């Protein structure tokens, strides 16, 4: 690639926050049609760099030269108007507004009276989304769409606004494999049109699939930049973590030990024929102590619903659940918790942490009733529990009094895990435990899952990261359209076998293709 001129040149960018040097003298160059991977652990400075580029923050030092001119954006709107669009990890659109109005907010087509032209807006929205393989009624509210489709709307929005640079901050964290493929084809089209893409992701396969060049940040500094093809995966990970290559190689890319914890004892959790109208049909799962059972399947296959039904958060119309041989009344979360079932929910922001409360308060939230006598809580017992788990889960916080909202995603997830472990559960349901957390923290959470299983807990693991699901699980129960379509055990637990089971019962390639196209 020999592009004429750079579209963006960042020189010596620095930004400090009270107590932290978030970004320290960082350079970044983008050429038209370049797909640039920006990677680093959480806290390495990726978000800060993106926010400086898009006008959310203003730099303490350094220059941003965009299309030959030194720029200083005061707001995201200014950056957007100049031609720098951003797609955020969590879909940032208006759920109650229609799909078309979301797509056109701020640049709605207007008729000669200056009023919005709804008909034209809907027509153009349909066309624009059709190009991304999204076929929906654009007049419906956005929230009626699945997360993947919402992300595509965000993408269409970013691209449609005549961007010269599109920044994608973990765009695939809520996408299914086939949606990821659509995203990649869009990225390739952008590249062919001469638009520069900054791609942030923790998924290495994706980086190697679409990116040409890479910048690695660590502790706010640029530690590597160049062509991605010149850096193999292990070197990439070791550069990012700042660990020795040999260590990474020895320990593998995930922290799972391979899992041989399954014992012959009786199941600690036995769910039989769980049915939720329109959602689950006769789903049965059993977990033995010390076993990690994976739930495989695509978005919408009923994985999260299965976990919710088991934990009592989703009322079932039929089916039975027994915990350690004792029948459980369904549809009641308190009963499930008392029986020893703990659910780590998928969406830790809305269903898990209380960001304004401290680490200590977040950990002790669920266990408080057990630590209190006549309604008064024993502070000493809370302290001892909190200290135990902060140490055991290696939670990095300045003190137990630090607000959880200030911690990194990985540490927030550990705090949540601690909250449920404090309840002394027999069964742990983990719904996407490593989504959106950096490689280092991911490895730690994976290692913890292993340790917990080794301690005799039954673990149900849901993950969209196939590598994690395969390496972490002793067995994988595969769901499709709310029903169990297969179970992989022993040597069958491979990515290939899982893909085939998800795609259809027959092992031939046609079934795979069908499954990939039936929406």
């Amino acid at each position, binding site marked *: 690639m020999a592009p004429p001129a750079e579209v963006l040149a960042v020189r010596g960018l620095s930004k400090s926050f009270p107590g932290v040097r978030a970004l320290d003298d960082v350079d970044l160059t983008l050429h038209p049609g370049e797909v640039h991977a920006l990677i680093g652990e959480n806290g390495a400075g990726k978000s800060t760099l993106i926010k400086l580029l898009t006008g959310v923050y203003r730099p303490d030092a350094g220059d941003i030269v965009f299309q030959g001119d030194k720029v200083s954006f005061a707001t995201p709107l200014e950056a957007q108007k100049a031609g720098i669009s951003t797609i955020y990890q969590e879909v940032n659109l208006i759920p109650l507004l229609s799909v078309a109005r979301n797509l056109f907010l701020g640049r709605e087509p207007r008729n000669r009276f200056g009023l919005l032209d709804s008909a034209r807006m809907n027509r153009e929205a349909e066309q624009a989304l059709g190009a991304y393989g999204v076929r929906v009624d654009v007049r419906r509210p956005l929230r009626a769409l699945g997360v993947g489709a919402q992300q595509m709307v965000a993408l269409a929005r970013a691209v449609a606004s005549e961007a010269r640079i599109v920044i994608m901050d973990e765009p695939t964290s809520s996408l299914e494999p086939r949606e990821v493929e659509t995203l990649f084809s869009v990225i390739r089209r952008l590249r062919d049109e001469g638009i520069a893409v900054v791609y942030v992701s923790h998924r290495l396969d994706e980086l190697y699939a679409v990116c040409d060049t890479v910048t690695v940040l660590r502790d706010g500094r640029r530690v590597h930049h160049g062509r991605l093809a010149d850096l193999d995966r292990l070197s990439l990970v070791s550069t990012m973590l700042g660990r020795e290559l040999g260590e990474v190689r020895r320990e593998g890319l995930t922290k799972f030990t391979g899992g041989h914890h399954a014992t012959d004892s009786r199941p600690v959790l036995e769910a039989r024929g769980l049915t939720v109208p329109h959602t689950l049909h006769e789903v049965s799962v059993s977990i033995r102590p010390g076993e990690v059972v994976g739930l495989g399947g695509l978005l919408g296959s009923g994985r999260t619903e299965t976990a919710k039904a088991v934990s009592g958060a989703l009322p079932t119309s039929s089916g039975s659940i027994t915990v350690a041989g004792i029948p459980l009344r369904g549809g009641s979360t308190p009963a499930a918790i008392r029986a020893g079932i703990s659910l780590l929910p998928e969406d830790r922001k809305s269903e898990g942490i209380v960001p304004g409360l401290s680490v200590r308060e977040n950990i002790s939230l669920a266990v408080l009733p057990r630590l209190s006598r006549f309604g008064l809580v024993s502070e000493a017992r809370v302290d001892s529990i909190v200290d135990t788990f902060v140490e055991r889960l290696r939670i990095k916080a300045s003190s137990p009094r630090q607000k959880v909202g200030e911690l990194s995603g990985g540490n927030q997830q550990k705090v949540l895990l601690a909250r449920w472990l404090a309840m002394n559960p027999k069964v742990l349901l983990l719904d996407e435990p490593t989504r959106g957390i950096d490689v280092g923290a991911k490895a730690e959470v994976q290692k913890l899952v292993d340790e917990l299983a080794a301690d005799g807990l039954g673990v149900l693991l849901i993950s969209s990261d196939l590598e994690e699901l395969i390496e972490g699980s002793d067995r994988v129960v595969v769901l499709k359209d709310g029903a169990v379509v297969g179970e992989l055990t022993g040597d069958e637990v491979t990515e290939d076998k899982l893909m085939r089971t998800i*795609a259809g019962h027959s092992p031939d390639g046609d079934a795979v293709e069908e499954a990939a196209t039936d929406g």
Partner: protein
Amino acid sequence: MTVTKTQAPVSVDDGRRPAGDGPVGPARSERLTALVQQHGALAVLVIVSLVATFSFDSFATGDNVSNMATSSAFLAIVALGMTFVIITGGIDLSVGSLFALGGVLAAWGSRHGTLVALLLPLVVCGAIGVVNGLLVARSRLAPFIVTLAAMLGARGLMLAITDEGADTYLIGKGSFLAELGQGSTLGLGNPVWIMLALFVAGAVVLRRTRFGQHVYAVGGNEDAAALMGAPVARTKILVYTLSGVLAGLAGALNAAWLASGVTILGNGMELEAISAVVIGGTLLTGGLGHVSGSLVGVLLLKVIQNVINQIGSLDSSYQQVVSGAFLAVVVVAQTWLGRRRQLL
């Protein structure tokens, strides 16, 4: 991660899937729920009106209808501004005081000519609305507290002008202002026509202009709206200003109708306006609603009041009991429908 190798076109979603990891729910019942949420109040209004027509001979008479329409007009104009504020996720408690202040200012100003009488309340109440908006948008204070302060302040200002309510300014008979409030066109009072024109304009602004889109966006998800480039602060300042101006105008028209600036009016009017807006299908949490619903809400409250007046044996205090109970039922129904729509 391995990606399935396929050349077939990839389709992301059929649009019938709810947010989250779950299979399909029927779209038709979702539409039905939406319909009930948006137009339930209208159905109730029609039913109550029909029942009242058959039960009381004096209900559907020209005089009674025309009176109801005129007395609804003032509250409706206030509720129009409130609709904008509530859709952004805010609330404006100052409108009752601004209504009274607007009336007194109009009556006081009528001694200096019609122009002063009309402009003074709009400018003063609008300015208080601007201050509300600035404090909410720029200083990021809670709308509840900001507009509560404005409510107390505006009432104080009104009392100061009228010497603690001792002075009542009159609007001269036959002046343009009096004609605006008391006259009628095609059988309906002028305030009703003004109110209808404002609602048409309000509906167009809300649904068909960028400002209207921003109002919905700010209420739907403020952070996302900001990232999408919507001018969040400006939108908020504008809606509080609009609410203030409309409350002042409603007060001025009301004074013109009564031919004097009555100081004891407007108490609790902010709550009546909020009730009407919520009954009309606007979510108190913002992001969803429309002006026609608020008009229906106002009419419904006024019809219920009228019906209770028709039942001579019932103390008029029961109006408030019925209105309160009705509001509670509506909020419960709204919440239930809202949850249903999210679950479907």
